[in-house]
């Protein structure tokens, strides 16, 4: 498989820490200076939120008798689109342009930022209003805008909370799910100068409504992402709950939508599948309060200037790998985060990536052509809960293993990697396990050698090196004196069928 090398400059924001280390810190009770909510309260908040969404999601998917058929259709439509991605992008471009939209193409995040600044320049806004958008996070747009004297105002409640708290999103449907309402109250009371604000969610929401209302009515430029692009109409679909999205999409003079190139669907009618699967998967609702679908600049109804920035930024190389191409089917519902037992423990920040959870674990390293975030494919016990809930049937465990094999090949291509402890251990194990005689011999040897490690109670309570990770919290049973095969040999061998003689095993099968 060929993967283009991406500019290394974009890696600087990513993966400051490997997953095991970041997870260890997230699990520890100590708050870190640059992560104000990173303590055990955070873990409780994450657990509560994911449990609530997960229960709702399970109920509203179970009630649809055709849920599996919808998943199949969704997967097939997305897979088909990816196989013809250039065709559908061109069709979208033509139709969007015909209806008054302007389509731009950004090869990487730097170009996307530059395009945004160029579009903004003639309007010289001091502020822009924004709808929650993953692509904006991905290209680090807010920091760029601030550097150029433009203040971005996040209008999604959760994004506003995160922005006011100087925090990072931890979940891409509910970015503030790691923050409790008491913490929200404190932030709002300070930022909105309302010291008497209570922590009732109703009051907090009302405070956000009045805080943002004038911004919606007066800010001339809005920036969004999109849930879907529609090739046949040049349409854009945005799914939301609060109405902040509709405000941004309809009131300003100028709208800029930054959209990953994979987000296109062939037909308007394909939404009949995704507007069933996305809300039920994302928030556990039968339908979210608002979906907006429009094309270009409809006369008198919405912005006069509409720009779509089609963002590649590492996506197109993923198409080359037929095994992992399915990653790009993702519709960003975050059901896999809510279902993931690893995410439950660590929350989103430990992934050190805009895209957290199981989908982040496969998408992030691929967006960097496997040159960063190599610990993320291992951030999973392969329990399969993510695949089970995915509304477009992305076999995340399969892709995780596939990406692990690429990480292994990278390691084996270097001297330090091939002489590393893991590689040597796995090579030795493979050497033993592919042979009928070596494995039993190794077991016999281990039975004899283990005794210094075995406690009086018959368990191993301490192991050296990387294995100490096990014994830090867990005992390990010692090998019993007699293996099953030895017992069988002793008690059944004479009754057993003659051993079928396997053909010689070419050990270089690979």
């Amino acid at each position, binding site marked *: 498989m060929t993967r283009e090398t991406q500019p290394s400059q974009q890696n600087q924001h990513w993966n400051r820490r490997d997953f095991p280390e970041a997870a260890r810190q997230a699990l520890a009770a100590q708050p870190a200076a640059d992560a104000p909510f990173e303590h055990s309260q955070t873990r409780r908040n994450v657990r509560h939120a994911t449990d609530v969404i997960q229960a709702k999601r399970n109920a509203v998917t179970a009630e649809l008798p055709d849920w599996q058929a919808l998943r199949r259709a969704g997967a097939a439509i997305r897979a088909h689109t990816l196989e013809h991605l250039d065709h559908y992008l061109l069709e979208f471009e033509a139709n969007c342009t015909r209806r008054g939209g302007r389509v731009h193409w950004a090869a990487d995040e730097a170009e996307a930022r530059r395009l945004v600044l160029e579009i903004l320049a003639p309007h010289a806004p001091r502020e822009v209003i924004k709808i929650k958008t993953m692509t904006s996070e991905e290209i680090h747009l807010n920091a760029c805008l601030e550097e150029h004297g433009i203040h971005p105002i996040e209008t999604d409640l959760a994004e506003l909370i995160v922005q006011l708290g100087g925090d990072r999103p931890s979940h891409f449907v509910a970015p503030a799910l790691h923050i409790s309402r008491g913490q929200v109250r404190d932030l709002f009371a300070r930022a909105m100068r309302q010291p008497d604000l209570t922590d009732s969610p109703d009051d907090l929401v009302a405070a956000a409504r009045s805080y943002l209302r004038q911004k919606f009515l007066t800010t001339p430029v809005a920036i969004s992402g999109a849930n879907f692009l529609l090739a046949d109409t040049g349409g854009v679909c945005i799914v939301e709950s609060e109405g902040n999205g509709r405000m941004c999409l309809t009131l300003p003079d100028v709208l800029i939508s930054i959209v990953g190139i994979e987000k296109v669907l062939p037909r308007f009618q394909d939404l009949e599948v995704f507007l069933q699967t996305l809300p039920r998967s994302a928030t556990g609702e039968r339908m979210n309060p608002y979906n907006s679908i429009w094309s270009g600049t409809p006369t008198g109804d919405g912005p006069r200037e509409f720009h779509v920035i089609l963002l590649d930024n590492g996506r197109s190389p993923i198409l080359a790998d037929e095994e992992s191409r399915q990653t790009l089917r993702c519709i960003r519902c975050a059901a896999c985060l809510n279902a993931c037992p690893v995410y439950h423990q660590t929350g989103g920040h430990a992934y050190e990536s805009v895209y957290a959870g199981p989908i982040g674990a496969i998408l992030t390293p691929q967006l960097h052509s496997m040159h960063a975030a190599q610990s993320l494919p291992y951030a999973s016990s392969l329990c399969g809960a993510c695949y089970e809930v995915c509304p477009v049937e992305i076999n995340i465990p399969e892709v995780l293993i596939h990406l*692990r094999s690429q990480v292994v090949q990278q390691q084996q291509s270097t001297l330090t990697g091939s002489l590393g402890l893991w590689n040597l251990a796995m090579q030795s194990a493979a050497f033993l*396990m*592919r042979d009928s005689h070596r494995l039993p011999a190794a077991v016999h040897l281990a039975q004899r050698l283990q005794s210094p490690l075995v406690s009086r*109670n018959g368990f191993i309570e301490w192991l050296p090196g990387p294995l100490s990770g096990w014994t830090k*919290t867990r*005992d390990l*049973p010692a090998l019993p004196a007699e293996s099953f095969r030895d017992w069988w040999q002793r008690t059944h061998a004479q009754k057993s069928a003659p051993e079928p003689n396997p053909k010689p095993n070419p050990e270089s099968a690979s």
Partner: protein
Amino acid sequence: MRLSLFITCYNDALFPQTGKAVVRVLERLGHTVEFRPAQTCCGQMHWNTGYLRESLPILCHFVRVFADAETIVVPSSSCVAMMRDHYPKAAQMDNDPALAREVELLLPRVFEFSELLVRRLGIEDVGARFTHKVAYHPSCHSARSLHLDEIPLRLLRRVRGLDLVPLANSQECCGFGGTFAIKNADVSSAMLADKVRCVLNSGAEVLTAVDNSCLMHIHGSLHRQRTFVRVAHLAEILATGETSSESAAERALAADQHFTLSSSEFPQ
């Protein structure tokens, strides 16, 4: 029926009592069990850790050893999941049409132990007696890959004297995940802590599953915390009989580890 036992590498070395229990149950039901000593491992650890190339000769070896076996029984759902989910792809990767064909012919004859009893042999009552409170942990592969669903529970419900207690959040992974437990030891331990809390809250005396890997992991913490909850592979519970049950059960609860059914209990 002639049944060929794939004991799996870790059961062979660490949990021989499970293999003995499988043999006991199947022989009690009138079947002939054979064991092919040439067998080693299914290749799962290497495959799941990303050492695909290294796992190929291991799985090729498995396919050759069992090529002419009538029906293969495996007391480990994750090993069966490895075969069903990944062997076809592995054969494809190996660019070996002969291997692909062999895999295709072999897979329909491979059964996880409880699946063999219920789906293949149509048996739910194996004549076991086990007078203890038992919770069942549906391991990830048994639930989400093999879709065993109610199968192990149906077997447990027919065990005389057994008090099956519910386990909260039972579908959630215990955090084992093979090398994950080492590579991401902290997260794995946190997941395990949640699982152990649910096990302790269930009030069960014994936790059972169709995978000793998960049981070893959960027991690792139960034992470290000096709790009195024991673990036993489903086969070991099903192997208890009307006559030997008392001694087996009592010894099991007295022993500070997995159930141990000594070979003397197996009529030769």
